[in-house]
């Protein structure tokens, strides 16, 4: 499925952004994959990897690429505007009001409580994307290994993100390259449709 029009794109991203307390990531996955189904889980993972590697806010990058693909430059601008226009207004208003109440312990507690919920939301987003890895040309074992190493590197060892992406991401890509190159030559397993996954603009 695709967005119906440029204004559909704008309002969808606006609504999505306005639900995104504590970051938009968890909402993006739910809205674009589960509710609107503009992207499959597999496509979302791939797009997210690109959005993550490119500099700038990941959600903004994802919106730009999705909007551009559907409606060209106007679509990219609509997604960008949708993601930023209303949230910017709201956050500036909050900042103007916040000066008076920032020191109230209840307000700080509520902020902490919402941040704790946001942390759980993001972890769940990662868990929900695990089934998308079943179609990976690398096989389940390699995926589990790379995923677990990425988690340990960032969560437990606190390796800087850029080094992790370059070293671990680089090795994973090299491994995927070898797997992909081997696939067409041997009799490819039909349950691992590595060559038919990128159907591009097909509806």
């Amino acid at each position, binding site marked *: 499925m695709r967005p119906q029009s440029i204004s559909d794109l704008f309002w969808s991203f606006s609504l999505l952004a306005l639900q995104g307390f504590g970051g938009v990531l968890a909402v993006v996955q739910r809205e674009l994959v589960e509710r609107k189904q503009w992207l499959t889980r597999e496509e979302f993972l791939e797009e997210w990897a690109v959005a993550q590697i490119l500099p700038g806010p990941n959600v903004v990058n994802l919106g730009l690429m999705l909007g551009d693909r559907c409606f060209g430059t106007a679509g990219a601008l609509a997604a960008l505007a949708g993601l930023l226009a209303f949230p910017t207004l709201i956050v500036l208003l909050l900042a*103007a009001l916040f000066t008076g109440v920032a020191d109230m312990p209840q307000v700080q507690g509520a902020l902490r409580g919402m941040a704790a919920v946001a942390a759980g939301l993001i972890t769940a987003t990662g868990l929900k994307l695990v089934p998308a890895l079943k179609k990976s040309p690398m096989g389940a074992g390699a995926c589990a290994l790379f995923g677990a190493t990425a988690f340990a590197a960032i969560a437990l060892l606190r390796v800087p993100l850029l080094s992790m992406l370059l070293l671990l991401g680089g090795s994973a890509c090299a491994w995927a390259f070898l797997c992909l190159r081997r696939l067409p030559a041997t009799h490819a397993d039909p349950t691992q449709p590595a060559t038919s996954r990128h159907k591009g603009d097909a509806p």
Partner: protein
Amino acid sequence: MSAADWLGLIGHFLSLSLLAVGGAITTAPEMHRYLVGEQHWLSDAQFSSSIALAQAAPGPNVLFVALMGWNIGVNAAGGMQAGALAWALGLGAGMASMVSFLLPSVLLTFYAGRWGQRNREHIGLRAFKAGMAPVVVGLLAATGWVLASSLAGMLTNWHVWLLSSVVALLVWRTRIHMLWLLAVGGALGWSGWI
């Protein structure tokens, strides 16, 4: 704010834009060094409350950049009691910060995205996407972990871990709406449980 200040502010955010790999928040230490340490445009408290407020408010976390600009403008006006001048400078500096922080990365993503779409059947790009997929899954789970542990401090606040885990489980296994969970989290925090 003098013209040189405006140029300094805009130039600072323009120069950080392409360094923000992995999200805007990765450049926060450099912003702190320049805006708080070198220029004294922002206080430490304003710096951290800009980040906290942007995380709590709806929308992408990159909005903390707009908030920093807003605070810088309001400070330049002499505080909120300056009235209209504070609003004008705050809004102006907030918008200028946001636009200059986003413009370079938006242009890069736009053209890189088109290039990737044209070459999507290339084996190198397919390998990149397939290889990065499990790394991204691990990274998402880790991001939640890091957020929760930064809230919980030294593992002393088990309430945070309990709330985050229950939320993760609910969102993973059910279709409950996220706004309910956020409301519950806010209420629990308000009442002092977190």
